[in-house]
């Protein structure tokens, strides 16, 4: 039997994503070199090296527990919040090693924003949610905040739905709206890089669609790294796909190549659904 028959038919990409992009020509936003990660004595990431090109979407795929979320969370040092974690290797953002102890994680996280699997609106109004980041950064001017909140809600494709109720509780929004609010809230801190940890896995298909299209729009201005369990989603929204398995980076390449002609047997088995 021919090999092509086993490979998934790849769905069309969202607008704004070129899946055959030669990423080696792009300047890099993130350059990870020989990263290993430990929870106490348990090693969960083994010697990962990965380049993330600027203004593109990199999808991290792999079965549950393969370390892709842990890897994502090292990129803004979110794992610092967990006791007993340890990391070796380098991760360069803007040419600086963010693993270095003298890095101010508060400044780093403004530059590298994050959207979580579960939408996490604060129990405040829609406006106050989006204005949160600028406010903790010291912005107090009402007119500046007003403009910022509007532009971020527009970028997150939520403005039209909430513009008449900005001062009502964010908790009252639907799941999909809450997640777009969290994206708007992240945009408000003016990051260059946005990390997304399964941002659509708890949403219905229509909301998922909106988030995917949004990713396509955002990658014109932001570098996005997204963890997803949904392979269709990875193939639709990303320029580059990285396959993780048991804490190792098995293969990384242009999304079209990974999904049509992977070089590694494990990658092929995973994307054709034979395990995972």
């Amino acid at each position, binding site marked *: 039997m021919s090999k092509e028959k086993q490979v998934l038919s790849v769905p069309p990409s969202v607008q704004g994503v070129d899946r055959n992009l030669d990423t080696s020509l792009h300047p890099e936003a993130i350059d990870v070199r020989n990263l290993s990660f430990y929870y106490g004595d348990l090693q969960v990431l083994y010697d990962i090296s990965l380049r993330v090109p600027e203004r593109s979407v990199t999808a991290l795929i792999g079965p549950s527990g393969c370390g892709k979320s842990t890897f994502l969370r090292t990129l*803004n040092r*979110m794992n610092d*919040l967990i*006791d007993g974690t340890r990391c070796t290797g380098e991760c360069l953002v803007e040419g600086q090693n963010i693993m270095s102890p003298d890095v101010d994680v*508060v*400044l780093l*996280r*403004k530059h590298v*924003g*994050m959207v*979580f699997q*579960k939408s*996490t609106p*604060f*129990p*405040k109004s829609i406006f106050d949610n989006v204005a*949160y*980041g600028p*406010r*903790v*950064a010291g912005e107090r001017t009402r007119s500046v905040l007003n403009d910022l909140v509007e532009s971020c809600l527009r970028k997150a494709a939520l403005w039209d739905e909430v513009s008449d109720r900005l001062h009502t509780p964010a908790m009252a929004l639907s799941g999909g709206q809450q997640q777009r609010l*969290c994206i708007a*809230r*992240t945009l408000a*801190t003016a990051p260059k890089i946005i990390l997304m940890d399964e941002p659509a896995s708890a949403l219905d298909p229509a909301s998922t669609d909106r988030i995917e299209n949004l990713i396509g729009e955002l990658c014109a201005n932001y570098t996005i790294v997204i963890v997803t369990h949904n392979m269709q989603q990875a193939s639709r929204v990303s320029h580059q796909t990285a396959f993780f398995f048991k804490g190792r980076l098995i293969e990384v390449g242009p999304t079209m190549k990974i999904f049509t002609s992977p070089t590694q047997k494990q990658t092929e088995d995973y994307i054709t659904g034979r395990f995972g």
Partner: protein
Amino acid sequence: MTSPVSFSTSISRRHEKLIRVCLFCCAALSVLTTGAIVYVLLSNAIYAPGDKTAFFERVSLTEFLTSAQWKPAEGDKGRFGIWPLLSGTMMVAVISSLVSIPAGLGAAIYMSEYAGARERQILKPVLELLAGIPSVVFGFFALKFVTPWLLKPLFGWLDVKVSIFNSLSAGIVVGIMVTPLIASLSEDVIRSVPRSLREAAHALGSTKYDVCMKVVVPAALSGILASFLLAFSRAVGETMAVAIAAGGSPMLALNPLEGSQTMTGFMVHASTGDSAADSISRMSMYAVGITLFLLTLVINLISGWILRKFREEYQ
């Protein structure tokens, strides 16, 4: 012919019933006690069956609520305005809140957000130890340490006179007493704020202090307020420490450096005094008791309502 298997009730099944009855009696006991207390209060204060006369059958409610003097010892010529006692109680409770709210909330935030697991293992039992000290000990602590060694030198330096018995020392020690209550209740609600909210706040470039003050504490605010109210109600009902430290002179003066008498303080005084059992001064104790009962009941109901509201938000 008898069947080899019997379905008739065995002795051990009858025990089940007995256990049920015993447990019901235990539950009924607390209900009955509450009922008995309310009955005793009402029958002595508002309407007495038989030939006894209740307090409000001798003293008008208007006198009780409007008179500015509390002089029960003078019998039927005495004055029975609740305000001196109520103001004494409120002054001590408010001073105690000024001490316990910052200390308790600070301790709660430290334990839940800043302290490591080891530190928490030491801090929590120490706070519980503080909660376990008998209140009479706190009374002597106020009388023998806080007033002579803290307040007198401090206010003496400012040339202000401090009485041996004063509301300030009583309020301070009651504040110390109820600090563990606020710390432990607030810590529970602060810890129950979902971890995901903290992570989201950190991911937006917040410092730890921002995360605590702008996200975690506001999210737990209703629970924290409820703990403040419960502590306030404990302070209102606190007896021995204030009876010792604040003294026994009911007056409608809001000077915390002078002695005052609280409602609980008066009740200790009245129930241990040597006036006759049906004298008006003894009966007045029940009217004060009802006032105190209603006051703490209302505060507890409000804080219970706030706590329930908080649980609905997050569970």
